[in-house]
């Protein structure tokens, strides 16, 4: 049984022609698997390596550099909420917002709510400083949010 979905395999194959080296498909491959399964399992890592003609260790080396990708022991919930804590957001309540969400959901940054719905992450500058404090929900930015707004979007999504 293959760990990679037919769609993931297709995405990976489609990317190969775009670069002069197959290794360059590592990030696109990790992204599609992370998006589909909430993590990149060891088996998926090995299958990506096989398609790209690499050692699984090379995939792991790249994957572990970017805190973005999760292992199978630590998958993300249905939605992933990132709260920015860098200076422009910190000056406008970003850290308090993050702390409030931690208390409200009973988790620490990086953790997932008990119902598996929301993974809360701290983020360094999300590039939406004109709307501080801001959040990223999956990959969509929302500007000028408070805890109620974050909760509403996180519960209403996924």
């Amino acid at each position, binding site marked *: 049984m293959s760990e990679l979905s037919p769609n993931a395999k297709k995405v990976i194959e489609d990317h190969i022609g775009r670069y002069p080296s197959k*290794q360059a498909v590592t990030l696109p491959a990790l992204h599609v698997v992370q998006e589909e399964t909430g993590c990149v399992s060891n088996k998926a890592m090995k299958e990506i390596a096989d398609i790209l003609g690499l050692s699984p260790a090379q995939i792991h080396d790249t994957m572990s550099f970017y805190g*973005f990708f999760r292992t199978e022991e630590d998958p993300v919930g249905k939605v992933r909420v990132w709260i920015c804590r860098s*200076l422009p957001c910190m*000056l406008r309540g970003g850290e308090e917002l993050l702390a409030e969400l931690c208390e409200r959901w009973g988790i620490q940054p990086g953790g997932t709510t008990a119902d598996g719905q929301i993974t809360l992450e701290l*983020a360094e*500058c999300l590039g*939406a*400083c*004109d709307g501080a404090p801001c959040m990223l929900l999956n990959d969509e*930015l929302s500007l000028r949010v408070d805890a109620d707004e974050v909760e509403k979007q996180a519960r209403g999504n996924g």
Partner: protein
Amino acid sequence: MSNTEFKPVLLGRVGRPNSQTLESYRADGGYQALAKALSMANTDVIEVVKSSGLRGRGGAGFPTGLKWTFLPKDVNGPIYLCINGDESEPGTFNNRVLIEEDPHQVLEGIVISSFATRATTAYFYLRYEYGRCYRVLKKAIDEMYANNLLGKNILGSNYSLDIHLHRGACAYICGEETGLIESLEGKRAWPRIKPPFPAIEGAFRRPTVVNNVETMACIPHILQKGPEWFMSMGVAKDPNNPRDAGSYGPKLYCISGHVNKPGLVELPMGISARDLIDKHAGGVWKGRKAKAVVPGGISMGFMTEKELDTPLDFNGPGRVGCLGLGTAAVIVIDDQTSMVDVLYNACRFFAHESCGQCTPCREGTAWSTKILERIRAGHGKLSDIDLLLEISNSIGTIPGSTICGLADGAAWPIKTAINKFRPEFEEYITSGRKSESRLLAGAH
């Protein structure tokens, strides 16, 4: 030209209905600059950009046309253009707005620049967090392929180009050009030792140019309106300084922090920080005064209230001890905010984002954060202040202890905060006060 008369160029189409579509871009004269460029010799396009005085908008301010001339004359095989859309410097969001609102302006600049540099493939490296940008760009690129603006024989010429979008994975270091290249190649984003510079050996070990998004947005305007138009704006080069390349053209200034109206403003380069805050950002919020202002992203360090008349051109911030203009992202800190908290935030950012390759950076950023944690917990010692300074003087490319400039960016907030606000640090430590902000256990 006074600032009040200035009509935005790069943001000229922002906010118009359907500003993202090819149809509306063309109705506003879009892609005429590309047609013009394709009728010229590629070396003449480089000459136009070179003579405009355009300097890269990503932070380092290197002259764009000059960078292009570093490509070898005779090349067998591909040349690559990489677009640095990994905008992650705290306070910076101009690329996001440019892409979300007017993607074709950026893409036209990319095609012209690729033609000029003889690149046949362009990789647009976009930070993962900009999901909306990704979808807007994808649609715009599809429109271009369908209308002979990308692919084979663009607009009937014998020039062909492909653009591929490549998403990052939330790592600040990918904004460093060789870190970006390593990341593009599917590796950890560890910056390379230079030389060789990317122009000689870059992506996939081929000659490569890496350019910023805002830089690309300037290119079609320079082609259409001419280098003299570009040089009619900004601050002329100092005739007594042969190394000064001047600060020409329009510039996007991001304003965030404690102002009434945070946002993005386009102005001729060289406005003072004070005018930017008072005239374009509604002043400091809550009737307060500014205590400190970051001139161009947190890496550049801090200016004091007294230094706010400094012009925000390529030279101004450096004259008051900052690292440079950086990304022209201005962050305003009011007089009720503790500089200890602000510096802690900056140090924590760099500790989180150091790639770990060079020991002075990895350890220096981590220890400066720990020292500030100790001070904020009420256990600081006065000697910690000089220890922080010693760390800041030891890390980076300026002392020569690291491969890339991330650590210089980590050092400058420390140097400027302590040199300019030392009594505040001393008072914080001697009073035994603790930070009022809520510390998160386990939040690293």
